């Protein structure tokens, strides 16, 4: 390539720009935290599908309670774990809205187990984003139902002992057995390729809602460097090498291709 070719008068081709639905604001998330990546994916997917103006989102209790500071969407803040019930109420009275929940693993898999199971069982036409960092980030890194066996947290300082606190709950697999769940997938923020796949899952989970097919959930394996006591780089390595084998990424169920009630 010559210098002349480089100076050809041509509009610069935009390879990347921040999604419109992502607020231009510095973040309160810790360095290396996965919530920021997931927020961006949500903003990109909703933007690409043109859903921003009709989305009503539900923020959890957890680090991602601040989602409404970063995503330019209408938001309601749910009590800890109750996002799926709050979203159900929205769904039932706003037939044309796009309804999104965003929850952590303490929120969804511990205190809110009842609400997520029943929203899924009813086949509520909502899209659930479930960010699994295996820990209670906001309250200082205590054990979650998703914490791995042997993992040390501030409330299991010698490592999680399944004889004492049970084994990690594969929440999304559990939900996937319910006929109301039209789509369930698990992605990860471990690397660029996983992030790309996660975006595809999220897009599909939104399309499922638009098609009226039922409940859709995307679990995203995510990092919590501060809670894990690791650097951001060590955290993504652990996510890829230690966490992902326990919670295998991929599509867990897709009932949209099969004919339902055929």
């Amino acid at each position: 390539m010559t210098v002349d070719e480089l100076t050809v008068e041509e509009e610069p081709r935009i390879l990347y720009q921040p999604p419109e639905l992502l607020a231009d604001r510095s973040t309160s998330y810790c360095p290396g935290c996965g919530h920021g990546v997931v927020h961006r994916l949500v903003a990109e997917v909703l933007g690409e599908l043109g859903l921003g103006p009709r989305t009503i989102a539900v923020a959890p209790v957890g680090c991602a309670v601040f989602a409404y500071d970063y995503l330019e969407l209408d938001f309601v803040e749910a009590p800890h774990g109750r996002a799926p019930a709050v979203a159900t109420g929205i769904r039932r009275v706003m037939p044309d809205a796009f309804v999104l929940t965003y929850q952590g693993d303490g929120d969804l898999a511990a205190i809110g187990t009842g609400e997520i199971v029943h929203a899924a069982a009813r086949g509520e036409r909502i899209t659930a984003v479930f960010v699994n960092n295996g820990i209670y980030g906001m309250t200082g890194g205590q054990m979650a139902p998703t914490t791995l066996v042997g993992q040390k947290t501030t409330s299991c300082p010698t490592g999680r002992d399944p004889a004492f606190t049970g084994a990690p709950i594969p929440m999304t697999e559990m939900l996937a057995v319910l006929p109301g769940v039209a789509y369930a997938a698990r992605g990860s923020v471990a690397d660029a390729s996983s992030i790309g796949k996660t975006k595809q899952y999220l897009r599909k989970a939104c399309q499922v809602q638009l098609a009226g097919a039922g409940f859709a959930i995307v679990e995203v394996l995510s990092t919590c460097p501060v809670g894990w006591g690791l650097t951001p780089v060590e955290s993504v390595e652990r996510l890829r090498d230690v966490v992902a084998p326990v919670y295998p990424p991929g599509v867990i169920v897709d009932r949209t291709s099969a004919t339902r009630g055929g």
Partner: protein
Amino acid sequence: MTVVADKPTEAPLARRTRILRKGNEAIAEAAVRAGCDAYFGYPITPQAELLEWMARRMPEEGRVFLQAESELAAINMALGAAACGKRVLVSSSSPGMSLMAEAMSYMAGSEVPLVVVNVMRGGPGLGSIGPSQGDYFQATKGHGHGDYRLPVFAPSSIGEAMDLVATSFEVAEKYRTPVILLADGILGQAMEPVEEVYRMPPRQDFDWALGGADGRPPRVVKSLHLKPEALEAHNRHLRAKEAAIRDAETRWAGERLEDADLVIVAYGTAARVARTAIALARESGMRVGLFRPISLWPYPDVALRALAAQARGFLVVEMSAGQMLEDVRLALEGARPIAFHGRTGGMVPTPGETVAALHRLDRRTGGSGR
């Protein structure tokens, strides 16, 4: 979907008929006619007929009915629907109210209007399914955590309950607050002849309701204010709102007070027992009147205090071990002797017991001791 005019609907006088209707069902129908958009609930005695009525009527009107997996879920569904500016009702009885406490606090904090009916039963714990007024503290000072008060309206007849349903929606929407309609197992279960008069409060255009940020900045309905200064400012705003409610929404009714030198203070079903007791006591020459609070918060303390000028003593009658009694004490500030008669556990005070308590109060306050 039935289209109903968004203005108060009163049947012309000629068409007014009296029908026999169960309290729970009358409350439910009044909510339907008040323009309730969505109902969420969970079965519990003695309020289940309310949920069942809504299960039939709401779909008939093209509106939303959903039986939730718990009271916890029901009120959070209500939070979601009400955050979208819809007119929403939930109902339960005492144990279910405990489960709703968390969301009541969130809704008070995030200023979401809602009407909550509590058809009280005996407690604590699973208690009984009999009528009770044991949730007075919970309704007027308690439910969820934090520094807030919610309007509480207590009907003492089924007709009044129907009217207060519309009032509750009005107050909820005007002040952006949950409102509690406090009934008890007798009001819920009994049948009474009622006039079919309904009111539909006019709809407001809410500048906070969610619906998608289409051509306007995003809206957030939330109760989190992490900065102490911000949360204190929010609390000050809530206090100012409560002061406005105190000024405009305090309600009470008086009966036979003109010449009364003894006053019974009672609300809800207990007020009906008191009414009978007053008639009996007056036959024996006592001059007794009834002060009946209709809003339990804000409490009609100024009006009650004013009665101290004419009354020798006050008798508080409750279906509890003495909860409203504390508000009566606060209102009277020791100005006059206060007696109490209460039954608990699903038992209801009888007129005879109440007359006996009146006689004791009469003697204690220098009456002739008839």
